[in-house]
């Protein structure tokens, strides 16, 4: 699964730390998701999408093989 977190974060102009704080996770988690090292839980994905004002499938995209 890939995601647009980095792009959406750039649009809002916030840092990984700020995003992490607003969602209540560690900054490492944001970084791991942005570098496709970690697939978040549904709860976390929903929170992130809500913060960006997008639907989950606009932020998180299934890939071939998922």
């Amino acid at each position, binding site marked *: 699964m890939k995601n647009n977190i980095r792009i959406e974060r750039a649009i809002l102009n916030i840092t990984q730390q700020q995003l992490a704080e607003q969602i209540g*996770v*560690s900054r490492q*988690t944001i*970084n791991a*998701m942005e570098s496709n090292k970690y697939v978040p839980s549904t709860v976390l994905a929903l929170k992130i999408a809500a913060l960006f004002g997008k639907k989950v499938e606009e932020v998180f995209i299934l890939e071939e093989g998922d």
Partner: protein
Amino acid sequence: MQFQLLLPPKYKKIGVLLFVPSLLLAILHRFNDFKVDFLTVNLFEVDLNFTDEIALTGIILSLLFIAFAREEHEDEYISSIRLKSLQWAVLVNYSLLILATWLIHGFPFIDVMMYNMLTVLIIFIVRFHLELRKNRIANPEK
């Protein structure tokens, strides 16, 4: 929040503080036959000394404290690192045990079993903290 069987973060420090004296006591007992006199109890006509019991209990408790103290920002990603590290530690621990079973015979195997009581926790602690650190270093504040 999901339910987690973890201790408050301060237990990591408590664990380290307990580990050092327990390990020292264990080493002194093992290699110098050191015994704390007031820990000798006469049970059923036999003098029993509880120095090694105290030392091993201290070591096991301190390792459990260190291993299962919650990280300051324990979220789902850190939990996943924790789980992976634990699986890795169990695998490595038992691989080493199989290796030792075939390589070490007779009386010295008692030593292997003794150390093996603790290695799974030690390997887990080292692996988990290395993974956390790797993550922090690969990930400097931008």
